[in-house]
């Protein structure tokens, strides 16, 4: 069927410069790695160009880290405040990008037909999701680099195994991505915008990010400890502040959220 047969010149061919062959069909998908790389670069550019997203992913975590490390607002327990705060702010950074940012961006992409149009392009859906994940990871690397530099300037002295930290960050990213995509793929874009910001705020306060879970009533602590952001911040704190090995409880909690969130997103995500 390809190439197609030539046809008669248009009966009303005035105006066009047609028949030069410039538009002659030559279809084909680009190689997968090129498509995924191009998509990841575009997604990352869109994210870094968006002021509201930068506020969420860069400005708020940085401000919290600097402010709470230098001004004694919350009782962070014994030791340097920055040693308590840095793991919590890293967890917040992961949540802001993988959950809040991704949910809002994807929600509006769905609303404005971007996902629909891409679904008609040669890019397979799984490749689009891969590109989105790559874009989230690139953004996280930039965030974590920035926050680490600032934390060191504030006198941070991290302990523990970098591999344990990396594992926790990856599991946290998977858990938050699943939940963010679930929200983006099921709610209206405006509802996602409101809900994702609200959840961000609630988890910032109640998820052990800057306020230790011990400051909450004993009954609430058990429940709050099961939240993904608490599991991530507490797990990072066990390793980075206390030099513990891999915190298995938190790994289990994050794994459970990741499996449930990604499965639900895969099941319920609507592309239009």
């Amino acid at each position, binding site marked *: 069927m390809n190439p197609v047969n030539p046809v008669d010149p248009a009966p009303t061919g005035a105006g066009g410069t047609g028949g030069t062959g410039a538009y002659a069909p030559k279809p084909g998908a680009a190689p997968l790695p090129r498509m995924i790389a191009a998509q990841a670069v575009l997604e990352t550019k869109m994210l870094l160009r*968006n002021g509201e997203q930068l506020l969420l992913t860069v400005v708020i975590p940085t401000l919290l880290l600097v402010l709470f490390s230098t001004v004694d607002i919350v009782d962070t327990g014994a030791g340097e405040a920055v040693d308590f705060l840095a793991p919590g702010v890293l967890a917040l950074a992961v949540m802001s990008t993988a959950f809040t940012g991704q949910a809002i961006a994807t929600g509006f992409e769905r609303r404005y037909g971007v996902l629909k*149009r891409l679904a008609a392009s*040669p*890019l397979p859906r799984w490749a689009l999701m891969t590109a989105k994940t790559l874009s989230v990871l690139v953004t996280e690397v930039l965030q974590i680099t920035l926050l680490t530099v600032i934390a060191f300037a504030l006198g941070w002295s991290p302990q523990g195994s970098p591999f344990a930290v990396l594992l926790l960050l990856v599991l946290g990213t998977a858990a938050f991505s699943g939940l963010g995509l679930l929200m983006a793929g099921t709610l209206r874009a405006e509802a996602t915008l409101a809900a994702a910001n609200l959840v961000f705020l609630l988890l910032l306060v109640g998820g052990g990010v800057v306020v230790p879970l011990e400051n909450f009533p004993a009954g609430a602590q058990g429940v709050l400890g099961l939240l993904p952001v608490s599991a991530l911040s507490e797990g990072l704190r066990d390793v980075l502040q206390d030099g513990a090995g891999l915190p298995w409880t938190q790994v289990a909690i994050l794994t459970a959220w990741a499996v449930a969130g990604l499965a639900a997103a895969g099941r319920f995500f609507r592309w239009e």
Partner: protein
Amino acid sequence: MRSEPVVQVQALVKRYGTKTAVDGLDLVARQGVTAVLGPNGAGKTTTVETCEGYRRPDSGTVRVLGLDPVRESAALRPRVGVMLQSGGVYSGARADEMLRHTARLHAHPLDVDALIERLGLGSCGRTTYRRLSGGQQQRLALAMAVVGRPELVFLDEPTAGLDPQARRATWDLVRDLRADGVSVILTTHHMDEAEQLADDVAIIDAGRVVAQGSPEELCRGGAENTLRFSGRPGLDVVSLLKALPPDFRADEPAPGSYRVVGEVDPHLLATVTSWCAQHGVLPDRISVERHTLEDVFLELTGKELRS
């Protein structure tokens, strides 16, 4: 001359809840430009989106370039270009950025700079999509549909809301695509657009194809045309009628103004003018009024307003 169908829809049914959007629709589109006309809510977009693989038929079959748009989507997508009715672009993306990106998803894309130039998208500069004018957004969507050098392009109301210049530019591009062997399926409300561009027109109403054919066939089919001329008042209409082939009517609706109704063709015109010559009449303002596609469309789909 006519090749394999590029789109073949058989007995397509598509419902949304209790509403039947497409109701047993049959459509064959061949190489060239096919215009799908119909009032709002007739099922045009649903039909086109089923061909694009966005909707699963409730029953019936759809084949595009011989493939099933849902099951064989991966093989079909690179060969087909899609222009949605609206949207489809990141609100923070610039026009050239989005077009370049779309080109990168294809193996042998068109020259992006030439396409930007041709569709006047160069003036968009660093403006992001959400701040582009409606016409610029439309032209970007059109460019994205063709940049991958597809065999077949679906354009859903490509000139809706465009100014006359942009409309011409779109028409010219469609003609060039056709001349280079790209098939085009376009939906439109503009009768002149269908008359100008289409080899084949399908008129859809209430989820079915109610007429299909070339614009000429549709305008000719069954429809009577009118020939009018002016001369001195009181000519012998009965004698004129005798000169005409059977089934024609002739009268003088106003003094000096004559009307002949029937299947007007070149021979009929010759018959009328030779009758005038025999009777020493110099007709001025002789005119043939042919049915337009719009007449045919309104005849088939009614004149009342649609939702």
